[in-house]
């Protein structure tokens, strides 16, 4: 069960592919914060990869993004820390890509899927949880840009009209 709307963001301390340790404090200056549970191997992540990068770039300077990979890398070697470094470099991720080796952060947030988006406001209270939009296969046919709309609402000082959608993606590969 994931954390509920209004819940505070849990702090974390996780290694990033940039060689640094990252925590919530790193994103303190952002007006909003998007935390997404992510991985290398999932086709849903691949389908949303370019859209997520574009969104992070569109709101750079206002909204911070961070991606966390908690998958069991023993069973899924494409999700190893080394493979994460390669993927982030290949795609030019404009956000930290973090490794949750113990899976404790994924469990604390109650994440179950990749990708699964959590959007926090400037007080770091959860304001949107779920999927990026409603069409994983054809971005141009998406009717609802849930995450983008929620971000715009927060930046305008309003609560998102839609606060929750069911995340659609691969199950997190638990140890």
């Amino acid at each position, binding site marked *: 069960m994931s954390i509920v709307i209004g819940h505070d963001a849990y702090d974390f301390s996780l290694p990033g592919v940039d060689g640094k340790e990252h925590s919530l404090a790193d994103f303190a200056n952002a007006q909003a914060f998007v935390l997404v549970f992510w991985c290398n191997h999932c*086709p849903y992540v*691949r389908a949303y990869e370019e859209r997520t990068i574009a969104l992070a770039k569109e709101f750079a300077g206002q909204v911070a993004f961070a991606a966390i990979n908690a998958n069991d890398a023993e069973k899924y070697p494409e999700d190893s820390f080394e493979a994460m470094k390669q993927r982030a470099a290949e795609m030019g991720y404009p956000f930290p890509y973090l490794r949750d080796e113990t899976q404790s952060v994924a469990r604390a947030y109650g994440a179950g899927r990749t990708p699964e988006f959590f959007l926090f406001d400037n007080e770091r209270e959860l304001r949107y949880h779920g999927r990026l939009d409603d069409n994983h296969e054809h971005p141009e046919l998406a009717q609802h840009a849930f995450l983008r709309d929620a971000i715009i609402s927060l930046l305008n000082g309003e609560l998102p009209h839609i606060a929750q959608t069911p995340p659609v993606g691969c199950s997190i590969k638990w140890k």
Partner: protein
Amino acid sequence: MRVDFLYFPGCPSHEEALERLHDALAQEHIRVEPVVYCIETEEEARQNRFLGSPTIRVNGVDIDPAFSEETSFRLTCRLYLREDGRPSPLPSITMIRNALKARHESEERR
């Protein structure tokens, strides 16, 4: 003709994929009911040469020629590439139809 549809419940693409398979069969006028397998353990994945969810085989041959040499059998969602090069968790209806057509034609030649 035999059509096998294998899926892993941890991956949400199977319902849409099965629907797409039925549409493809109808469009190719092939009256065959796919045999559906639910793969739930790593052992079942190995035994059934399961490359990820969904996997569709026509007469035992995978619909995606790119996967013919693949031997990584496990519980996972499967990555397909659409005709426009975009990644997708689902095979396109064109890919399914092409595979059905190819097997159907080779059966008729016999």
